């Protein structure tokens, strides 16, 4: 047993190193391409969204892959992160002029709010066994979207104005400013996100999750996933560790939301960006990339964000091809026959590699 553990730690350290090196290498390559002007506007525009979805996928992977609980409301945490950070940015825009400081404050606000919501949801739900977390997070994602759509907050010389469902109740003076305007969401958010910020956030998220899963707490979390009764019998506080993993997972998703909100000048809670479909999309990144593999999550998020955009040349067929590729990838990764076939190939591959090495 001890031997096995030792082996897995070694492998995980290597794994960790490769993932972080991969992110840094990609970052350097991209920076060189941008500097030499050989990168198209489309690709440059996609850099931040790719970071955003990678971060959220890392967050969800912690929940699905290590905690073993299914969450289908991570877009909801993204939404919380996006709106609370954009709200703070709008509020402080006039007083803090340094973009980096402003972004850091907004980041803290977004992450903390997402963590708070994750914590609050986790308290009752994570005490239960079974698929309750999936059900509750699904509901949470829908609720938060609808709540934001009826929330009106404005600020003028008289102070703050709040209204729910009836924005007409707020009469603003001329220099007044809408902070959240119901379905219109938040507009005129300064562009504070950048690829560099995104990569730094990915690296921070990776450091956090790798350190967590390789720590004592991480082993406790995985023990709960593998055998709850056994974990309980050795004195692991189930609720505490579950809550810890889920809150961190939500907080990381919140960070993705912060990046999302500050990349576009407007953020609205629509089914397309923070709805059920987006939650499923993030789950697809995690499942395709391999549950428990953070590197896989990043690669899947990047590829699947890129795919529909680079297929633009195919006009209306692109969504069709995109879904076929999804199905093909899913089969390739998970179908028993495919796994068998890949194992055969894998053996060959490894032998070849050895030969080459010799």
């Amino acid at each position, binding site marked *: 047993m001890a031997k096995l553990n030792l082996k897995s730690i070694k492998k995980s350290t290597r794994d960790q190193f490769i993932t972080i090196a*991969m992110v840094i290498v990609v970052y350097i390559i991209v920076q060189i391409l941008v500097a030499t002007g050989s990168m198209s506007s489309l690709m440059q525009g996609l850099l931040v969204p790719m970071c955003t979805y990678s971060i959220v996928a890392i967050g969800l992977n912690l929940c699905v892959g290590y905690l073993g609980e299914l969450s289908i409301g991570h877009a909801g945490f993204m939404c919380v992160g996006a709106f609370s950070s954009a709200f703070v940015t709008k509020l402080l825009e006039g007083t803090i002029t340094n973009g980096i400081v402003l972004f850091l404050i907004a980041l803290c606000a977004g992450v903390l709010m997402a963590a708070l919501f994750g914590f609050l949801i986790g308290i009752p739900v994570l005490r239960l066994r079974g698929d309750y977390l999936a059900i509750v997070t699904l509901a949470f994602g829908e609720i938060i979207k609808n709540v934001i759509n009826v929330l009106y907050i404005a600020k003028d010389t008289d102070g703050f104005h709040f209204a729910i469902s009836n*924005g007409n109740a707020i009469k603003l003076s001329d220099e007044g400013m809408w902070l959240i305007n119901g*379905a219109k969401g938040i507009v005129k958010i300064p562009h504070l996100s950048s690829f560099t910020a995104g990569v730094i956030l990915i690296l921070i998220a990776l450091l956090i999750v790798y350190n967590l899963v390789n720590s004592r707490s991480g082993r406790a979390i995985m023990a709960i996933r593998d055998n709850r009764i056994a974990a309980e019998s050795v004195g692991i506080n189930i609720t505490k560790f579950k809550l810890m993993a889920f809150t961190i997972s939500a907080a990381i998703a919140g960070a993705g939301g912060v990046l999302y909100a500050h990349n576009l000048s407007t953020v609205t809670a629509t089914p397309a960006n923070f709805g059920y479909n987006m939650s499923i999309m993030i789950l697809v990144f995690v499942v395709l990339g391999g549950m428990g593999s953070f590197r896989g999550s990043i690669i899947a998020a990047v590829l699947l964000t890129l795919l529909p955009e680079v297929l633009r*040349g195919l006009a209306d067929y692109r969504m069709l091809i995109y879904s076929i590729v999804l199905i093909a990838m899913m089969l*390739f990764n998970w179908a028993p026959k495919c796994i068998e076939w890949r194992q055969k190939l894998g053996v060959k591959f490894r032998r070849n590699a050895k030969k080459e090495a010799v």
Partner: protein
Amino acid sequence: MKKALSVVVTAAMMTTLMAGCGDSNGDAQSAPAADGAAAGTESAAASDAGAASDAGAADGTTFKIGGIGPTTGDAAIYGTAVMNAAQIAVDEINAAGGINGYQVEFKFEDDQSDAEKSVNAYNSLKDWGMQMLMGTVTTTPCVAVADMTAADGMFQLTPSASSTDVIVNDNVFQACFTDPNQGTASAQYIAENGLATKVAVIYDSSSVYSSGIEATFVEEAANQGIEIVAEEAFTADSKTDFSTQLQKAQSAGAELVFLPIYYTEASIILTQADGMGYEPTFFGVDGMDGILGVENFNTELAEGVMLLTPFAADADDEATQAFVSKYQELYGDVPNQFAADAYDAIYIIKAAAEQAGVTPDMSAADLGAALSGAMTSISVDGLTGEGMTWQATGEVSKAPKAVVIKDGAYAAM
């Protein structure tokens, strides 16, 4: 190793897919196919592929107009209409000798009515060499894209994004009414013609368009002495059953129900109101246009429905008829108001370009400055209005038209 293999194969799949996109620098593809390093370089190859090094450079012989709108997803009907109608206008202009003697190229990109995808579409059009943007079709993406065009100085004319948030920048103009305009005009129209004193409103609180019109309608109604007896909202997630909202309107004694919503939901409301035997006057705005084309909808129920729209497909003027018959011939449907707005938008760009005397060899930013300057001094007669003019704010001024549905067709009031 399994994982590594899957990564390599997926990456290979991506590369083959993108081989068709051309312009790949090739150097990144000679990466060693080993473990994570392969994954890293492959995704770099992915970002690298499709890179057009001379982004945005025009070849100087044609004007390149880009369009953005949803051609897939929930709002696809609007984006498709805009795409088709704009293409008709571009073909007509090219057949008649182009703009200032130069031919026009038009390319339309899908954004699924999502802000992030819209920005991607914009960037992709920039790579194509777009000089002027006719878009976007829907409001929220338009706000995001307007921010990008402002940074690039690109001229932008939206056919149908009606929020005032869209036109805060100097380079963005609208071909359609703003939401506040529609709400105010509707309230004034109802009051001036004495249509009703007790009015109920059913609107989509999750839609920027609908809630925007609703807010100004309610505000103006108070000034006009109209009593709002019920203000009922629904959201995009619950738009199949409106019996609660209708019952509230009925029990509040509303004589007129104002529906600042799109026609799909409006057709359900009309059917359900008929089912409960509630027969108020229904009053809609431009989103209601198209209600007669809804499948499985009994158009008799729409008899007497009034709507404020700049365009009616069966208007008898020559321009409208020519456009409608051409659209039907090419695409098989009756064009809606979005199509008319887009058709006009292309001609508005033409008018502005001719006024400014621009040539295609100018950069997008120079063109943007010249066209924005010219917009305030042109007057365009189009399908959606006679003598349309623009203020520097980007807002169009044209007279709203109210039509009523009579014998299964729109009739002017």
